[in-house]
C-alpha cells in the first residue's frame, strides 16, 4: 500500500506559487516523510529542482479562473483539482494546497484510518477574530478542499466524477445552492458533490479537528522549520508546531 502527497501548483502572472510549494514540500519531507507528486504546467515546472524526491506531472491548466485577494481580482488556476483521483499514483493520497504548511505529523493519523475520504468541515482562525466564514454565503454545509485524504475506492471515484460534473455545470449548482461567490471554488464543488452523492443529507465523515487558517489580511513575517510569525494591526504573534493554511501568499518573497 503506497501513501503520498499530491499537490497542484500553477504560477500566475501575479503569484509565484512554486515558491510556496517548495516550502511546503520541505516541511512535508521533514514532518510526514511521504513521497510527493506535483501537478503543474511547463512554465511553472521550470522553477522546480529537476533532481530530488519530488515527482512531477505536467498538464495544461484549464481556463483561467480568478480570486479576490487583498482588494483585487487576481488570476487563479484551480480547475485541475477535480482530476486528483486520476493524477494520484498512490493507494492513499493526501491532497494538499501548496500554501498549507505541515509542521506536525498529525495528517499521518488520517491515513491510518479506514475512512476512504476525509476533509475538514470546520475551520479555526488562528488570529482569534473568526474572519474566515461570512454569513449567508450559501445554503450548503461548507467543506474545505485544502486538505483531503482519499483512497482509491469506487465511492471516492464517484465523488471525483461528481466534482467534475459540478465543475462543468457550476453556474447551475451555484444558483441551486445560492452560493454568493461567482468564481469557481473547489471548496464548494467538493461540498456540492458530497451533498449530492449522500442523497442531499449532511455527511458525517470529516477530519475531527478544524483546519487552522491565517486570513489574508494578516502579514506573515517569517516562516521557519517549526513556526509562523504573523502581524496584524501592529500586533505580532507566533504559531508553533501547528499545521496551518496561510492565505497571505506574499510572505514567500520576503
Amino acid at each position, binding site marked *: 500500500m503506497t501513501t503520498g502527497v499530491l499537490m497542484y501548483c500553477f504560477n500566475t502572472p501575479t503569484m509565484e506559487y512554486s515558491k510556496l510549494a517548495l516550502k511546503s514540500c520541505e516541511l512535508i519531507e521533514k514532518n510526514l516523510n511521504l513521497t510527493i507528486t506535483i501537478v503543474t504546467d511547463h512554465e511553472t515546472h521550470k522553477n522546480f529542482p529537476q533532481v530530488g524526491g519530488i515527482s512531477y506531472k505536467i498538464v495544461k491548466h484549464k481556463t483561467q479562473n480568478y480570486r479576490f485577494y487583498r482588494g483585487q481580482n487576481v488570476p487563479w488556476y484551480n480547475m485541475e483539482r477535480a482530476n486528483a483521483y486520476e493524477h494520484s499514483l498512490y493507494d492513499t493520497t493526501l491532497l494538499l494546497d501548496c500554501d498549507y504548511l505541515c509542521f506536525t505529523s*498529525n495528517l499521518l*493519523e488520517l491515513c491510518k484510518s479506514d475512512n476512504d475520504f476525509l476533509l475538514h468541515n470546520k475551520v479555526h482562525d488562528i488570529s482569534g477574530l473568526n474572519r474566515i466564514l461570512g454569513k449567508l454565503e450559501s445554503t450548503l454545509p461548507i467543506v474545505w478542499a485544502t486538505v483531503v485524504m482519499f483512497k482509491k475506492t469506487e465511492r471516492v471515484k464517484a465523488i471525483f466524477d461528481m466534482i467534475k460534473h459540478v465543475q462543468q455545470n457550476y453556474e447551475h449548482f451555484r444558483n441551486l445552492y445560492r452560493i454568493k461567490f461567482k468564481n469557481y471554488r473547489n471548496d464548494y464543488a467538493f461540498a456540492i458533490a458530497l451533498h449530492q452523492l449522500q442523497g442531499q443529507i449532511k455527511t458525517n465523515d470529516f477530519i*475531527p479537528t478544524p483546519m*487552522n487558517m491565517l486570513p489574508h489580511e494578516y502579514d506573515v513575517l517569517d516562516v521557519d522549520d517549526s513556526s509562523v510569525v504573523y502581524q496584524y494591526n501592529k*500586533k505580532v504573534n507566533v504559531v508553533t508546531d501547528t499545521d496551518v493554511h496561510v492565505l497571505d501568499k506574499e510572505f514567500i518573497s520576503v
Partner: protein
Amino acid sequence: MDIGKLKKYSDLAHDLNVTKRNSLEKMRARQIMAYEGRLFRADAQTINTVSTLKAHSKQFYLLDTNDNPCHIKDPDDFLRKLIERNQETLNTYSQLHDTLKRRK
C-alpha cells in the same frame, strides 16, 4: 491607571488569549489518533469511557469521532495508547501555560 497602560494591558491580554486558544487547538489536533482503522480523540471523555467499559467487559464496541463503531479487542492496549497520547499533549500544553503565566 493611564490610558497608555490600559492599552498595553489590553494588547498583552489579546496576545495571551490568542496564544492560549491556538495552543488548545494544537493540543486537540494532536489528540486525534487512529486505532483499529478508526479515529479517536485521546481526551478525558474517551479515557473515562474506555476505563469504565474495560472494568465490565474484556471486549466492547465504541463509537469513533465520526460515529463509526469500533470493536475494541484489547482494552488495555487501547487505554495505554490513549493515556500516552493524552499526557504527551497535556505536557506540551502545560509547558506553554507556564510560559504564558510568566508573561502576565
